[in-house]
């Protein structure tokens, strides 16, 4: 399922909304999650999962081809942990 298929499904379920409103709703939600992570906040959606940001400290990496040492600066990576309910449902629990 892609974002546009998600929008179509929601538009079908909500015939009283314009499709462009559904588009704005979906975009708003992903934008809010993105903005929260960019502030370093966590996003916790009980039953679904939680998004957080993890810091990776600076390190000395190596160019695998030349073996040359290169400095890799600190970076932050987004992380998702599946919620208990969804994890159970993926494995056949109700």
């Amino acid at each position, binding site marked *: 399922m892609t*974002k546009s298929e998600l929008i179509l499904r929601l538009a079908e379920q909500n015939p009283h909304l314009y499709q462009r409103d559904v588009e704005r*709703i979906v975009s708003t939600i*992903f934008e809010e999650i993105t903005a929260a992570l960019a502030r370093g906040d966590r996003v916790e959606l009980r039953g679904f999962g939680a998004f957080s940001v993890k*810091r990776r400290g600076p390190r000395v990496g190596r160019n695998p081809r030349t073996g040359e040492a290169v400095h890799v600066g600190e*970076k932050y990576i*987004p992380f998702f942990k*599946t919620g208990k309910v969804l994890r159970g449902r*993926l*494995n056949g629990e109700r």
Partner: protein
Amino acid sequence: MAGKTVTRADLSEAVYQEVGLSRNESADLVESILKEISDALIRGEGVKVSSFGSFSVRQKGRRIGRNPKTGEEVPILPRRVLVFRASHVLKNRINDTLTDTAGAAS
């Protein structure tokens, strides 16, 4: 790091502010979106959200684990796990604001 936690309530408030639906309907839509994504994943279907990331379901085989406290061996049964891969757009947004040396290394 800030350490605030954003929840469903914040997402529906954002929808309410942005689109002007009632608060109740905004909350219902947030719920519908999470439900549609979950249902697709449970069907074994991946979910791709452009400029955000993709969720996919991976099948894991049986393996022997160990209780870290007692050292006892326990079988870990085959199961399905959810994997999230963040898009470059999302990674860049996060690093642009959180790193001091943003842009210095690729």
